[in-house]
């Protein structure tokens, strides 16, 4: 394998991982934008999507149908979380809201463990998505699920871009994220915007959860924790609350993680997560508002 092939391979891996982070981070940023709330339960919504697919395929539903149902289940879960847990405390102090968000996470994960046990179960990926493709005589390999992840992320982010720049609801979501009272004053129905934000963000989390599980090959009730944490980092790097920032941050983080492992000696790269978080801390010192929001401090 030549050096160039190796680099190309790592770029494919980085784009694939970055896509997943971007999908999750975008949802976190959408919700943070309208509510100024870090929705830790976002990772559990991923789990709902992935489990939905696993269970439906288990009873014989065709995979593509199961994926659509899984995304819908995640959207419904997000809707219910907003309605039941967050709306009653919308005007409460930040600390109370943050704790509620954590509590929702623990409740969903523990219910998941109660129903499904905490041991991982197989994620039923159709054979066609499990096949590997080779280029340059086997120097570069990627699986169909890798390609599907990149393609689906690309399409769904284009759709999101259209939504937030062309529709009144999408523009309204960005407006409310910038200035809530001004959004009220122009007559936006902020309550409705928040509901839409949760549904959209959760649908993206569902898709991300399904793709994450497909790459990992397993589903498990606590599977959302790691991607949530990573997406959180990605969103902060990009500028928390900014949808474009979440996207950029996701790909930067994906690339950072892959390249640390690929190009640094293993004695260093085994500290991958520590390095990533060190980069985050350094980054926040220099640019507290994130890449796309210079000079604006993040308040969680």
């Amino acid at each position, binding site marked *: 394998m030549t050096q160039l092939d190796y680099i190309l391979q790592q770029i494919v891996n980085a784009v694939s991982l970055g896509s997943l982070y971007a999908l999750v981070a975008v949802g976190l940023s959408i919700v943070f934008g309208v509510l100024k709330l870090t929705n830790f339960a976002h990772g559990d919504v991923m789990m709902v999507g992935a489990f939905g697919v696993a269970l439906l395929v288990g009873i014989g539903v065709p995979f593509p149908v199961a994926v659509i149902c899984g995304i819908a289940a995640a959207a419904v879960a997000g809707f219910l979380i907003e309605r039941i847990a967050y709306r009653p405390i919308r005007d409460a102090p930040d600390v109370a809201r943050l704790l509620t968000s954590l509590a929702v996470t623990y409740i969903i994960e523990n219910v998941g463990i109660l129903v499904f046990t905490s041991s991982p179960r197989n994620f039923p990926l159709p054979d066609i998505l499990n096949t590997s493709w080779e280029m340059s005589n086997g120097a570069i390999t990627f699986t169909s699920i890798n390609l599907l992840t990149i393609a689906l992320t690309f399409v769904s982010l284009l759709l999101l871009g259209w939504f937030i*720049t062309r529709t009144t609801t999408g*523009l309204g979501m960005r*407006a409310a994220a910038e200035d809530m009272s001004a959004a*009220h*004053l*122009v*007559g936006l129905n902020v309550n409705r915007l928040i509901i839409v934000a949760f549904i959209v963000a959760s649908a993206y989390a569902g898709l991300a959860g399904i793709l994450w599980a497909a790459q990992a090959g397993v589903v498990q009730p606590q599977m959302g924790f790691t991607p949530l944490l990573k997406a959180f980092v990605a969103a902060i790097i990009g500028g928390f609350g900014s949808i474009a920032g979440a996207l950029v941050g996701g790909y930067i983080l994906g690339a950072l993680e892959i390249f640390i492992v690929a190009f640094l000696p293993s004695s260093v790269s085994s500290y991958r997560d520590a390095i990533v978080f060190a980069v985050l801390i350094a980054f926040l010192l220099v640019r507290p508002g994130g890449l796309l929001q210079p000079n604006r401090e993040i308040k969680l």
Partner: protein
Amino acid sequence: MATPSPVLLSVENLEVNFGAVRALKGISLDVHAGEVVALVGANGAGKSTTLRTISGLSRPRGGKIIFDGKPIGGIAPSRIVSLGIAQSPEGRRLFGGLTVADNLRLGACTRTDKEAVVRDSERMFMLFPILKQRLKQLAGTLSGGEQQQLALARALMAAPRLLLLDEPSLGVAPLLVRHIFSALAELKRQGMTMLLVEQNITLALDLADRAYVLRTGQVALSGRSAELRDSERVAQAYLGAAT
């Protein structure tokens, strides 16, 4: 006014608290259709709070707000806009990361009459020609005066029957202030009803038919602009001196 027109907005004994502080201690005022009414007074007199409460951003603790015969105190801000009250807020409060065109579009977000919205944006470009040149630009990159024009245009895009204006001259270069107030005078000629909060008392009284002078959350004085212009008591209320 020569012919008495119907009362469009009537505020009766309005009380608003901010925590333990009583910001408004029973304010009453009327705005007739087609009239321009100014609220003047020193900082902290309760002018902005009055406008915020009419728009539904603050909840009244007591008293009534009646618009076009319907009580609107405490209902959702978006419904108040739908009923026909739009506000150009203090500090402009534009969506700086959105384009001028998108800010205008959101100004019309409560409306369903698409063709009339297009006609109204043409009217805005007649009133504020600079906005037409800036359509694709982010609102945050406009100058203070341009931002103020956009804030006015955004409020007007709701096709309001009552326009609330909070400090339209604040942070605007003097030359543009004159431009903005001539646009407001043009709106007045077209019959727009306005309730204006303005620090610059000369500008306010020149534009308005009548004015209320607020002091520490109460109406200290009210009357026709021409009468108030020469009144010593206006200056006293402004300075917060005891009468």
